[in-house]
């Protein structure tokens, strides 16, 4: 009885200690959130504050996710951050909502690219092509800037958005297979070059499928060329949603100027979150299935994988198709959200950007892809831009840096941080390659619990509740093990001696290294 109460007391103390990180994490989220809420756009230092605090807020779900608490609890906490705190921040400043939506779009694409590059090891430098396929699929059928819609009147009703979301997935998957077929035999650099070319082909195709570039008055204009397709439709939202958002914002004391626009922002935010979560779920489940294992096997050793019965062709095409489909869905959403697409959005640098997200996060790691998307997007769209804004704001009031007495107006225009986006990016990648080549959140191999051992293990845990690091049987068997090792080494040395010519006796100590240093 006494031992039982002792154990219970111990358990409660342990629980309390285990709860500490969770409490700290929740405190962290609340503090960052309330600091962000208290920011005022008119403040001189607003750009700096917001570009420090918002990334801290974006990292909070990752901190929660890393806690050692039950998955359901983590999911609830993350859902609160994503579905309650984030929209409130969005009501205060809709730019935050824009940013997080952009992060989720890149995260979903990075997860898709991760299937191809991370899981299957097929380096794809033209991934943005699949994004373009989805975006143009919705763009062509809803913008009236092209002849297909104008002449035939085949404009898709905005209600068809959901159907097109599905079609975008299919179209991108088919495009993925079309790319995959000719490059099945290629690997590494060669594959990278061909996929790069494929990405460019799609971009040049969409900028040429019009009557603008050619002199002859070609009657057919499909993509409106480099001018892009304006006026792409958004799916209609039911009226009650607008009303609900309006009453919600009013009751929270955070009225927004344009309820319609804000509701759409919230809608797209929710939609990309769902697509992103689905992508993560699908990718994780594929990874942890015979298909994912076959992909990793192909990545590790193609010849051995085939010799073990893995159908290379089928698996590679599957990787290309499934990886592409995520980008296809995001493309449709992107076109509807932006209401405008042009070939510029699908340039080579975009493919590199998504690849950089995968590399920064960690190849083959789904958490990594999302985290990488957050880092790269924030750096690109918020942090560097805000530094420029900050410098301009300080320039306007003729601020002088204290201590060194440097007047900020003397800061050269050429050194504006926002102009150095790609430089910072490149430096980031180089630093990553030196210090963390496998990414910020590298992929871990899943540890499978051995079935035959399960019962045994649990009972062992119960028995050794007092956390004995050294078990008695280890102590007993250690001298025997060392003795065995010695014997084996002696036998080895004898063998070596046999093989050696007689006039070269083995030097003592060569075949018999020193005894193990640690005494039991």
């Amino acid at each position, binding site marked *: 009885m006494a031992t039982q109460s002792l154990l219970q007391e111990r358990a409660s103390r342990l629980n309390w200690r285990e709860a500490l990180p969770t409490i700290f994490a929740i405190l962290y989220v609340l503090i960052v959130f309330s600091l962000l809420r208290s920011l005022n756009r008119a403040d001189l230092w607003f750009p700096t504050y917001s570009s420090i605090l918002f990334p801290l807020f974006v990292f909070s779900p990752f901190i929660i996710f890393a806690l050692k608490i039950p998955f359901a609890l983590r999911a609830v906490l993350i859902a609160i951050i994503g579905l309650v705190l984030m929209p409130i921040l969005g009501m205060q400043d809709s730019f935050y909502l824009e940013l997080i939506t952009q992060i989720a779009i890149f995260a979903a694409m990075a997860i898709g690219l991760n299937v191809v590059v991370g899981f299957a090891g097929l380096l794809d430098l033209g991934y943005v092509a699949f994004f373009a396929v989805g975006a143009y699929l919705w763009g062509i059928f809803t913008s009236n800037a092209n002849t297909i819609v104008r002449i035939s009147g085949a404009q898709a009703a905005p209600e068809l958005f959901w159907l097109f979301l599905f079609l975008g997935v299919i179209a991108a998957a088919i495009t993925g297979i079309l790319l995959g077929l000719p490059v099945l035999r290629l690997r590494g650099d060669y594959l990278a070059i061909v996929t790069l070319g494929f990405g460019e082909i799609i971009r040049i195709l969409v900028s040429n499928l019009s009557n603008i570039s050619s002199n002859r008055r070609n009657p057919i204009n499909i993509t409106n060329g480099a001018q892009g397709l304006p006026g792409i439709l958004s799916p209609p939202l039911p009226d009650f949603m607008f009303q609900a958002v309006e009453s919600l914002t009013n009751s929270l004391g955070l009225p927004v100027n344009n309820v319609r626009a804000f509701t759409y922002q919230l809608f797209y935010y929710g939609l990309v979150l769902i697509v992103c979560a689905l992508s993560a779920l*699908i990718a994780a*489940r*594929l990874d942890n*299935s*015979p*298909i*994912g*294992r*076959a992909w*990793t*096997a192909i*990545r*590790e*050793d193609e*010849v*051995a*994988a*085939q*010799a*073990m*019965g*893995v*159908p*290379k062709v089928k698996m590679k095409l*599957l990787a290309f198709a*499934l990886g592409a489909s995520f980008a296809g869905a995001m493309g449709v959403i992107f076109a509807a959200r932006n209401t405008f697409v042009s070939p510029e959005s699908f340039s080579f640098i975009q493919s590199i950007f998504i690849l950089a997200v995968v590399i920064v996060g960690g190849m083959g790691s789904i958490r990594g892809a999302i985290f990488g998307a957050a880092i790269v997007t924030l750096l690109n769209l918020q942090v560097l831009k805000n530094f420029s804004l900050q410098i301009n704001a300080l320039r306007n009031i003729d601020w002088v840096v204290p201590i060194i007495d440097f007047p900020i107006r003397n800061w050269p225009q050429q050194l504006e941080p926002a102009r150095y986006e790609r430089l910072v990016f490149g430096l980031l990648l180089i630093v990553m390659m030196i210090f963390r080549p496998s990414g910020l959140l590298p992929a871990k*191999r*899943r*540890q*499978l619990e*051995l*079935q*035959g*051992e399960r019962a045994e293990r649990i009972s062992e845990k119960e028995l050794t509740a007092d956390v004995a690091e050294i078990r008695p049987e280890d102590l007993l068997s250690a001298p025997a093990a060392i003795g065995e090792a010695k014997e*084996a080494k002696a*036998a*080895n040395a004898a*063998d070596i001696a046999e093989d050696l010519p007689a006039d070269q006796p083995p030097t003592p100590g060569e075949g018999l290294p020193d005894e193990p240093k640690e005494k039991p």
Partner: protein
Amino acid sequence: MPLLEARGVTKRFGGLIAVQNVDYCIEPHTINAIIGPNGAGKTTFFNLMTGIYTPDEGRIIFDGKDITGLKPNRINQAGIARTFQNIRLFGAMTVIENCLVGMHRRLHVDWVQAILRPPAFNRQEREAQRRVEELLDFVGLRDKANEVAKNLPYGDQRRLELARALASEPKLLLLDEPTAGMNPQETAAAMQLFRAVRDEFGITVLLIEHDMRVVMGISERVTVLDYGQKIAEGSPEEVRRNPRVIEAYLGRGSAASYI
């Protein structure tokens, strides 16, 4: 009826004839060895049987089915598994995962099921894992089931390659120099294991080997290749005394006692 029959198999690389007009038969439930000096065409012959190369001439019949020119994964499906001379594991994967890949052809692989996870899928995964655990017990790697393959010591990597090959439940197992780099104790243990593969699983074994103790110790039939041609075949004793074999290994005029 032989389990595997190669008829007049030839493979050329440019002007070099790596394997020349080799006829070869393997009877079921036997342990066979192919020996020969370096560059005799042993590994090329393995690669021809497992589909990594396609023979220029000749046919290979396995289990009553012509497998000439099939892709490696189809040949694995037909029931031939192999290990490699320079171990080719999936380095970043764990021991268990390596074996599960070996089981690929035994699993029903469907991406829709992998995403939706119906009970049948989970049952299949559990069942596969259970069988892999049995195999790991067999080769003595259970304790390291969750270790990453590339971190294993050399001997364990060899064992894992064997377990991975066994996971595809082959009828014929090809082992390419399975005891290379092992010390005498490890070699002895490996020989035990190969015998157990045949006796417990009923798998026919064919091995390429340089270690004559292994060849003479466990194989029932030995075939000698030299310059891509079969120069001798028979029981270990017969081959050991065959003057052509001694000549191939040690040169003309050498004494038989050296082997």
